[in-house]
């Protein structure tokens, strides 16, 4: 399939200036009918990244839509005691190979970051693109204990869990998973429930939705009367999603619209869901910045504890002390304040000296604001 409409890139249609302008005009005229600014939360960090990379946020503001970044950034919401547990393991035990995705290695903790830690002899960290690479390393290096440290939402969870299943079927003795698995719908409910909420609608994460489908968000429209649309990640995709939300608000018809039908099916991915059901159980997870949300996390069922790094290495995953800090990442993640409203933003907290996870992750709202917004440097 050749996806070409203008220019030579296959993305040209979805990134075309004239199409973006037309969509913004249409959104603007709908807002005029509504008569007031509309606040929409984009949940997913990749959406936040697209909005900034293509300079869409200020254009949307002009059109009457204020975009608020949500908590869809796994690096941002994974508490740093996960990283500290891995750092402890690496510095005290030999022949441990920790594999993880890139971003996780930069999170600063009291014990340093995975990037700066000096492991014990024979131990090391490796950045991988896929959990299967970690499995491959375990097969090639039977004398090493390979731990895959995997943080992610429903998009990433099935692939990681499949890898654990394979390790189990091959009876590998040197592969385990430290999981930080987070579920989107309960987090959205927690945000809606919190009294300070002032959001009119949502842009739902397009790729999470390929797994969980459309019905996972129905409660937001039915129980809370809030509008929402599943959207893809090109500029035109997000704008089509925003247009749908704005129209729902105008006609007072909240629903879960699917503006990413080319990859999101109403039923999601049944195979992936069945695999997650088979191997994982829900628990009350502790989200950095949001606190404990009931049934919002997934972990390996006890029958798979041989492949769970928490069991294998007796890892302690509990906050040791509550640190009072001026960092307001929690409120940023909930969409209550913008990065610029945090007293540390730009002055004390910036990419080389991040005080909180929102400034660490490539999808963190604070890092994106700092990097991409004109004028942010002079805060």
């Amino acid at each position, binding site marked *: 399939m050749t996806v070409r409409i203008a220019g030579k890139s296959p993305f040209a249609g979805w990134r075309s200036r004239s199409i973006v302008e037309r969509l913004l005009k249409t959104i603007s005229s709908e807002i005029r009918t509504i008569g007031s600014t509309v606040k929409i939360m984009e949940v997913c960090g990749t959406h936040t990244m697209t909005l900034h990379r293509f300079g869409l946020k200020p254009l949307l503001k002009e059109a009457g839509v204020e975009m608020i970044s949500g908590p869809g950034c796994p690096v941002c919401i994974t508490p740093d005691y996960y990283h500290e547990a891995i750092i402890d393991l690496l510095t005290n035990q030999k022949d441990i190979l920790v594999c993880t995705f890139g971003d996780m290695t930069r999170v600063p903790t009291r014990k340093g970051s995975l990037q700066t830690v000096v492991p014990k002899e024979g131990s090391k960290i490796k950045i991988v693109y896929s959990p299967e690479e970690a499995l491959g390393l375990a097969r090639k290096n039977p004398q090493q204990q390979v731990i895959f440290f995997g943080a992610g939402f429903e998009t990433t969870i*099935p692939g990681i869990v*499949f890898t654990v299943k394979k390790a189990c079927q091959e009876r590998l003795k040197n592969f385990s998973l430290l999981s930080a698995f987070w579920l989107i719908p309960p987090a959205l409910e927690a945000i809606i429930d919190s009294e300070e909420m002032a959001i009119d609608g949502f842009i739902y994460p397009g790729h999470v939705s390929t*797994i969980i489908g459309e019905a996972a968000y129905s409660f937001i429209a039915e129980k809370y009367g809030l509008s929402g649309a599943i959207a893809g990640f090109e500029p035109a995709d997000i704008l089509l999603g925003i247009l749908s939300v704005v129209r729902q608000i105008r006609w007072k018809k909240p629903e879960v619209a699917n503006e990413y039908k080319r990859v999101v099916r109403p039923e999601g991915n049944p195979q992936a869901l069945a695999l997650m059901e088979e191997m994982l159980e829900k628990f009350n997870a502790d989200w950095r910045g949001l606190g404990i949300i009931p049934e919002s996390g997934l972990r390996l069922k006890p029958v798979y504890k041989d492949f769970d790094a928490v069991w294998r290495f007796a890892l302690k995953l509990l906050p040791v002390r509550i640190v009072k800090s001026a960092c307001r990442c929690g409120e940023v993640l909930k969409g209550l304040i913008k990065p610029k409203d945090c007293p540390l933003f730009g002055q004390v907290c910036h990419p080389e000296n991040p005080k909180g996870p929102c400034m660490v992750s490539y999808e963190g709202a604070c890092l994106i604001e700092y990097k991409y917004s004109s004028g942010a440097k002079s805060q």
Partner: protein
Amino acid sequence: MCLAVPGKVVSLKGDRTGKVDYLGSTVLANFSLLPKIKVGDWVLVHAGFAISRLDRKEARKTLKLFREMEKLSLTE
């Protein structure tokens, strides 16, 4: 939180893994999360796993919408 790219399946190894071409680069992908993949299918790949099939009819619908929008822009 979900970087995934739509690519074309160009070769299969067994029925569960294969190569997906995306703008001239190929990535090794695992197809275990999708039933019955064949060469020529378009899939969405995330962290080495194909998580969804691309519905070309839907993609064409969106492209048609864009073409109409472009025509409108030209006549303004």
